[in-house]
């Protein structure tokens, strides 16, 4: 008896063993979970850093282009030997402009004009696009004929790569695209200040080209712009109209459920399927032209619609029912309620969804393959009906090129595309910040 009481007293007096509520285990679990979270983010950040590092370290040089400045003598004996340009201006189009470059190089580098191998090596250093460059100068202003003018000509792609240190100069000369003689000339020109690196505006303005130095994303960017415009003009109103009807007017029955399931499914359909659909409907059935950004825009519209509809419905759902009830209670019609109160409040969500959908469409290549937009297009498209290509397509096509100078241009184009995407997503965030309301 006394034993029992004494032990009971003892227990009360000493620190009573706590009920095991697993506090330590739970803290440990929480710490572990946090560690998982941090690891997940670190992994993501690591891969993002690697991606950006590869793209930027490969691509930043693409924004510079080697330029050779030569005093070009627009000799009449070469351009228009018979002096017919007054009667026949077409003569100026067909003149032998490369000869002007050749003569200037011979003079500048002091080469024997009869040494054909050397002359060829020298002319190979200047881009073949100099023909059109000089032609455009002469056609625009025929009075330059007979004068000497200093013209900045694009250096050929391999010379450009060598100037940027992208060609392994320790390799055997026979295995190199740039020969020792050309390297010596490059030094000679560099010392005179005639071989310089300049900001590569051509990267943004030129169309596609088989010569890396004359290749740019101009046509692709314009094509992408047309397509984004078409997607915006078509997908936004159609998507918003569909979601308003489904969310606010449609009866909830099996049929609308079926539509909802289908929309969610379509959002996950591989984009190449939309390309097949576009080929069948817009090109084969409707007879729209191949490679046109109109068709591309229509296909991307179909692809973006589910995304926009889902985002819009979510935004409409998030508007509190009290606002609808208040408007209806004050005598507004259903349509007035929606257009005056619900839609403006849902707008930030709708715009965010639309911009994310657009950004997705901007980066899409697969559906464009089948409708002929993975193509080599030199001329700027005057309308969405003319052949054009798109930014990601240009990246894909450059990635497959053999020339060294296209490697940096590929990464350069990726940087431009990333910049567009960042601007669009920033826009989405800003819009949300600006118009978002909390209840």
């Amino acid at each position, binding site marked *: 008896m006394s034993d029992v009481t004494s032990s009971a007293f003892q227990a009360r007096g000493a620190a009573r063993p706590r009920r095991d509520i697993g506090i330590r285990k739970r803290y440990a679990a929480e710490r572990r979970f946090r560690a998982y979270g941090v690891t997940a983010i670190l992994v993501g950040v690591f891969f993002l850093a690697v991606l950006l590092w590869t793209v930027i370290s490969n691509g930043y040089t693409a924004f510079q282009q080697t330029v050779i400045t030569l005093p070009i003598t627009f000799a009449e004996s070469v351009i228009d030997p018979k002096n017919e340009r007054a009667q026949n201006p077409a003569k100026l*189009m*067909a003149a032998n402009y490369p000869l002007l470059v050749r003569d200037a190089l011979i003079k500048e580098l002091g080469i024997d004009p009869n040494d054909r191998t050397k002359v060829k090596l020298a002319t190979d250093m200047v881009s*073949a696009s100099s*023909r*059109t460059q000089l032609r455009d100068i002469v056609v625009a202003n025929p009075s330059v004929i007979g004068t000497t003018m200093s013209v900045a000509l694009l250096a050929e792609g391999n010379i450009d790569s060598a100037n940027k240190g992208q*060609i*392994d100069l320790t*390799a055997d000369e*026979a*295995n*190199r*695209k740039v020969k020792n003689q050309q390297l010596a000339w490059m030094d000679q020109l560099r010392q005179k200040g005639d071989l310089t690196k300049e900001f590569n505006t051509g990267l943004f303005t030129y169309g*596609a*080209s*088989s*010569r890396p130095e004359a290749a740019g994303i101009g046509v692709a960017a314009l094509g992408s712009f047309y397509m984004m415009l*078409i997607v915006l*003009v*078509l997908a*936004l*109103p*159609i998507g*918003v*109209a569909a979601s308003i009807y489904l969310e606010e007017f449609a009866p909830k029955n099996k049929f609308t459920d079926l539509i909802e399931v289908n929309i969610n499914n379509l959002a996950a359909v591989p984009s190449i399927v939309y390309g097949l659909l576009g080929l069948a409907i817009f*090109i*084969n059935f*409707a*007879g*729209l*032209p*191949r*490679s*046109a950004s*109109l068709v591309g825009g*229509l296909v991307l519209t179909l692809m973006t619609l589910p995304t926009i509809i889902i985002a819009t419905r979510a935004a409409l759902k998030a508007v509190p029912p009290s606002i609808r009830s208040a408007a209806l209670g004050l005598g507004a019609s259903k349509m007035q309620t929606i257009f005056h109160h619900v839609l403006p409040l849902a707008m930030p969500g709708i715009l965010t969804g639309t911009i994310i959908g657009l950004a997705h469409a901007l980066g899409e290549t697969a559906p464009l*393959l089948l409708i*002929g937009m*993975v*193509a*080599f*297009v*030199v*001329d700027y498209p005057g*309308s969405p*009906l*003319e*052949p054009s290509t798109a930014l990601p397509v240009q990246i894909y*096509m450059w*990635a*497959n*090129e*053999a*020339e*060294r100078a296209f490697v940096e241009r590929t990464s350069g184009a990726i940087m431009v595309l990333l910049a567009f995407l960042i601007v669009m997503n920033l826009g989405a965030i800003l819009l949300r910040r600006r118009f978002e309301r909390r209840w």
Partner: protein
Amino acid sequence: MTSFKLTLATLVASVAFVGAAAARDQIQVAGSSTVLPYAKIVAETFGETFPNFKTPVVESGGTGAGLKEFCKGVGADTIDIANASRKIKDSELETCKKAGVTEVEEVKIGYDGIVFATDASNPDLKLTPKDLYLGLAAEVVKDGKLVANPYKKWSEINPSLPDATIAAYIPGEKHGTREVFEEKVLHAGCADSGAEKVIKETVKDEKDQARKCIAVRKDGMAVDIDGDYSETLARIAANKSGIGVFGLSFYENNADKLKVATVSGVVPSTETVASGKYPVSRPLFFYVKKAHIGVIPGLKEYVEFFLDDQMIGPDSPLAAYGLVAAPESERESMRKAFESGKTL
């Protein structure tokens, strides 16, 4: 509401545009990705030389896909030219004719060499079709019997080859290059190694015989590359002892990174391919829809420009890029055939 009106207006506008699209003033080309770089050079130069015509649009996508588009029919909404890295098949020509494309002109632009190359840091490599067959075939002959390929290293096949694990990056099955590789390398090696004889004795069906001869091992030592040569180049950079299959022009543009292998003792070059000494080569073609000549502005001029010696001759920009020019007589007969309008 305005957005609805806008949509309506756009739809009406796009329908109105359809009518305008019927007349096309730009040549459209599609097909082989091997021919693509050559076609691009010609298209670009054509656009510069003939300012009155627009620069042709050249699509990529592969020989098969290009010919399929080509054979869809006649009219401004179909392409004018299909580039091909092989001859058009009879079945494809039949589809063409059924769809109304009855007159197809064939143009051979030159030859393309297919080379084997490793990373530039490797010693010289001398290959023969037999070595390649023994290294890459699914089954080889041992003691008069067909067995699953037991070789793990090149040196086990031929002591003069490097002591490295077999790793070959070969064109995938949908590649036009694959056919040449099968015919000129695997089939030749199959015959040289004596495997063909054994296969003929053991297998009845002729089709199966041919298929067995060109079957590639599937144990991961021969890797199919479905992408382009730049992917093969990246694989070689990652695995320095790997052997990759490239087009001659691609190799020539990246000769500072690659070491090319001789095949049967011949170094691949435009000269050896043109003379026929280098065994692994193939002709390149494009096909022209005759019904479009005279309808699509510039089509006739484009083909003539392509066939001109300043484009496909031995001193031309295409040859500088890696095309192997056809012999003078062949080029001349191509020009004559196109002029006379010869169709398939």
